[in-house]
C-alpha cells in the first residue's frame, strides 16, 4: 500500500481491493518477463483515473498502453489481464439470478457482456454434462465458428469449461477445472472437417480452408485454456496460476519444446527478425565507419565559410565481410532448431560475401542451392525437410563420420576468411567424435562456433559429447530466438 500513496487522486472506491490487485498484477507481469518500471506503474494508475470504467475493452487497452511496450508481450499481458481482471465471475449466470450486486473483485466487468449473457444463454444454471447437452453444445459451437462470432465463442468457451471441464473435489476449495477434460469431451478437432466443408463452399482453396479451420479451432482451444485459468485463479488465487500455468513469449520459447502452432508463428518472425538484425548491423558498422580525414574535400568545403573548416569530411572505410559455412545436424530431435537457424542465416545473406550450408545426420549434404535469393519460405522449408533424407545413409546421428566426410569432400569451403558454425546437440550415439578433424577445420578458419539448443544442464548427460567438442570449438547455449539473434549478431 505504500507506493502510490502520494501519486493518487484515486476515486474513493479504488483504495479497497483494486490497488492491491493492481500491484499484484504488475508483479505477475514482471515475473512473466515484462520490464514494468515504477514510472509505468504510476502511468497505469494515472490511466485508470483518466478512463471511464464502463467498458472493459477500454480499460484493458489503456492498461496495455501504459505497461506493455513490446508487441510480442501483448499475449502474455492479455492472459494475465484476464486472470487478474476476469471477464466474469464463476459461470456469470448465478449473478443474474441473484439480482444485481456489485460484481467482480474489481468492478470492471462490463454490464453489456452480462446482459448479452442473459439473452443469448437460456441455459438453466443447474444443467450439467450429459450427451444431449454435449450435442447441443457442439452444434452451437460449430455455428459460432462458421460465423466467426467472437462474442459467442468467448461465451461458449466459458460454458465448455463450466459444464464439461469441472473436476469436483472432495471438499470446499479442492474442486478444480480442467481445460484438457473440457476439450476431450467437446473434441473441437472433430468439427474441423465440417468447418472445412463450409469454407470450401464459400469458394476458398482446399489448403487455405484447412488452415483457416485449424486456426479457428486453435483460437477456441486457447480461449478454453484461458477460461480454465480464470476459474482456477478464482479459487486458488491469480498469483498461483500466473506462476504455474503461463507459457513464455515466442522469442523466449525453447526450440526443442515447440508446438505446431508455435512453429508457424516462428516462421513469421524470421524475416522481421532478420531485417531487424540487418538494420542494427548496418547502423553499427556505420557508426564505426568514419575513416581518416579527407583533406581535399574538407578544404574545398571550407571555401564557402571563408576558409574556416567548419565541417570535416572523412574517407569511408572499406567494409569487410566474411564467409560463412554452416554445418547443421538435421536429425529429428534438433530439426526445428536447425531449420530456423539456417533460415535466419540465409535471411542475413547480404551481410556475408558467401554462405554455404551443409546438413548432416551421418552423411554430409550441401543445401546451399535451396536458398535462392527471394525464395519462398514455405518452399525452402519443404525442400530442407526433403533433403534431410540425403543426409542419412544409416539413419543414426554420427557426428564423427559427418565431420570426416565434410573434411574429405568439402575442404575447399574452409579458408582463412571463413566463419564456421556448427549447429547440433552433440549427441552422437557413442560413436567416434573425429575431434582431431574438427580441430583441424577450426584451425583453418577465422572463427568457429558451436550452437547447442540444449539447456546447459543437459550437456554431457547420456550420449552428449558437448564438453569434449567444446574443448575444440567454443560452444554456446542457444535455446530460443532471443539467444539466437544475439549470437548471430556477435558472429558478424
Amino acid at each position: 500500500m505504500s507506493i502510490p500513496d502520494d501519486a493518487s487522486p484515486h476515486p474513493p472506491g479504488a483504495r479497497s481491493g483494486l490497488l492491491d490487485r493492481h500491484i499484484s498484477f504488475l508483479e505477475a507481469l514482471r515475473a512473466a518477463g515484462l520490464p514494468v518500471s515504477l514510472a509505468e506503474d504510476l502511468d497505469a494508475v494515472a490511466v485508470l483515473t483518466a478512463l471511464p470504467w464502463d467498458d472493459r475493452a477500454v480499460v484493458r487497452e489503456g492498461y496495455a498502453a501504459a505497461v506493455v511496450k513490446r508487441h510480442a508481450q501483448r499475449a502474455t499481458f492479455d492472459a494475465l489481464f484476464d486472470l487478474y481482471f476476469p471477464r466474469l465471475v464463476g459461470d456469470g449466470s448465478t449473478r443474474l439470478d441473484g439480482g444485481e450486486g456489485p460484481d467482480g473483485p474489481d468492478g470492471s466487468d462490463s454490464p453489456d457482456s452480462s446482459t448479452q449473457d442473459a439473452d443469448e444463454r437460456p441455459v438453466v444454471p443447474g444443467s450439467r454434462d450429459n450427451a444431449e447437452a454435449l450435442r447441443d453444445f457442439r452444434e452451437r459451437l460449430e455455428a459460432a465458428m462458421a460465423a466467426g462470432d467472437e462474442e459467442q465463442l468467448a461465451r461458449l468457451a466459458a460454458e465448455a469449461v463450466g459444464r464439461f471441464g469441472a473436476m469436483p473435489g472432495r471438499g470446499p476449495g479442492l474442486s478444480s477445472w480442467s481445460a484438457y477434460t473440457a476439450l476431450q469431451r467437446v473434441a473441437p478437432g472433430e468439427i474441423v472437417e465440417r468447418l472445412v466443408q463450409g469454407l470450401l463452399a464459400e469458394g476458398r482453396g482446399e489448403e487455405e480452408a484447412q488452415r483457416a479451420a485449424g486456426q479457428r479451432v486453435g483460437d477456441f482451444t486457447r480461449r478454453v485454456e484461458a477460461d480454465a485459468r480464470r476459474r482456477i485463479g478464482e479459487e486458488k488465487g491469480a498469483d498461483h496460476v500466473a506462476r504455474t500455468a503461463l507459457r513464455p513469449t515466442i522469442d523466449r520459447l525453447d526450440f526443442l519444446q515447440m508446438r505446431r502452432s508455435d512453429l508457424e508463428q516462428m516462421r513469421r518472425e524470421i524475416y522481421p527478425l532478420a531485417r531487424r538484425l540487418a538494420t542494427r548491423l548496418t547502423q553499427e558498422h556505420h557508426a564505426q565507419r568514419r575513416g581518416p580525414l579527407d583533406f581535399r574535400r574538407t578544404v574545398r568545403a571550407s571555401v564557402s565559410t571563408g576558409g574556416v573548416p567548419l565541417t570535416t569530411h572523412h574517407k569511408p572505410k572499406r567494409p569487410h565481410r566474411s564467409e560463412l559455412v554452416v554445418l547443421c545436424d538435421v536429425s529429428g530431435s534438433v530439426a526445428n532448431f536447425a531449420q530456423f537457424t539456417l533460415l535466419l542465416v540465409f535471411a542475413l545473406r547480404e551481410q556475408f560475401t558467401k554462405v554455404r550450408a551443409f546438413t548432416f545426420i551421418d552423411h554430409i549434404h550441401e543445401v546451399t542451392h535451396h536458398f535462392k535469393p527471394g525464395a519462398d519460405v514455405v518452399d525452402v522449408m519443404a525442400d530442407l525437410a526433403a533433403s534431410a533424407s540425403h543426409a542419412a545413409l544409416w539413419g543414426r546421428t554420427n557426428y564423427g563420420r559427418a565431420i570426416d566426410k565434410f573434411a574429405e569432400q568439402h575442404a575447399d569451403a574452409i579458408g582463412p576468411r571463413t566463419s564456421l558454425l556448427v549447429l547440433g546437440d552433440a549427441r552422437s550415439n557413442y560413436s567416434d567424435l573425429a575431434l582431431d578433424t574438427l580441430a583441424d577445420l577450426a584451425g583453418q578458419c577465422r572463427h568457429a562456433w558451436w550452437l547447442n539448443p540444449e539447456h546447459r544442464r543437459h550437456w554431457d548427460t547420456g550420449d552428449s559429447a558437448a564438453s569434449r567438442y567444446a574443448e575444440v570449438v567454443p560452444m554456446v547455449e542457444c535455446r530460443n530466438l532471443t539467444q539466437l539473434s544475439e549470437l548471430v549478431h556477435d558472429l558478424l
Partner: protein
Amino acid sequence: MTWFSSPTDAADRLGATGYLTDAATATTTYLAGALEKPLLIEGPAGVGKTELAKAVARANGAELVRLQCYEGLDEARALYEWNYKKQLLRIQASQGTDASWDETHDDIFTDEFLLTRPLLTAIRREEPTVLLIDEVDKTDVEVEGLLLEVLSDFQVTIPEMGTVAAVRRPFVVLTSNATRELSEAVKRRCLYLHLDYPDSEREREIVVSQVPGLEEAVATQLVAMVARLRELELKKAPSIAESVDWARTLIALEISDLDDAAVNATLGVVLKHVSDQERAVKELRLDRAGR
C-alpha cells in the same frame, strides 16, 4: 487545452476527419492527450501510423510539425543549429567598427542567428501543435538520448541561451516500424500502441471512405481477398495503403467484379515481391496462363 474529452470523443472526431479508429487506437490517443504523454506507435508499414498523427492535428485544428528520422540524423538537424555563416559575416562586419569583442559575442548568440529545427520549433510554438517524430527506429541510438529531454520535460537546453521550456505542451507522436528495438528509456516515457491490420469490417469502411465511387460489393470482395492474402506466408503482407491503391486501380480500370481474372491482372498493385505473387497464385489457384 484538452485534446479529446473521452475515448468515444476521440473516435468520433478522428472519424470525422476521415480516420477510422478501433477501440485500442481511440483509447490510447485519448490517453496521450489527457495525460500529456508522448505516444509511441509501432506496427507494420502502411497501417496508418503517420496518418493518425495527421488526423489528430486535423481534428484539433493544430499545426503538424514533422521530424522525419533517418540514419545520421543529428542534433543540428533535429533540435537547432547556429547559423555560422551569418555569424561569421556579423563578426567580419563588426571589425571596422569599434564594438568590443564582448558585445559582438553577445550579439551573435541571439535568436537572430538561431536556426530552429523541428523539435525546438514544436516546443516554442504557442498555438496547439502536434509533433510527429516519424520512423524513430531509423535513427542512431544517440538521437534517442537527445529525445529524452524533450519527451520527459518538454524542454531543450541551448548552452549559449539557456533552457527553452514548452509554453504549451505539444501532442507528441513517435512512429516506428520496429526495425530496431528502441531503448527502454524512451519507451518508459511513452504510451505504447501497436497498430495492426484492421479487421475486415473496419478495413471495408476505410477503403470505401477513401475511394469514392467504389461499389459496396466490390469493396467487400476486395477486403476479403486482402484478408486472404494476409493469411498466406508472404514476405510483405498487403497494407491498408495497398488495399486503397487496389481499389483505386479497380476504379481506373472500370472493373466492377473482382473475379480471378481481375485479381490476376492487378495483383502487382498489392504484392510487390515475385515470390509473393507466385505463392498467391498457387494458394488461391488463380490461373496465371490466362495472363
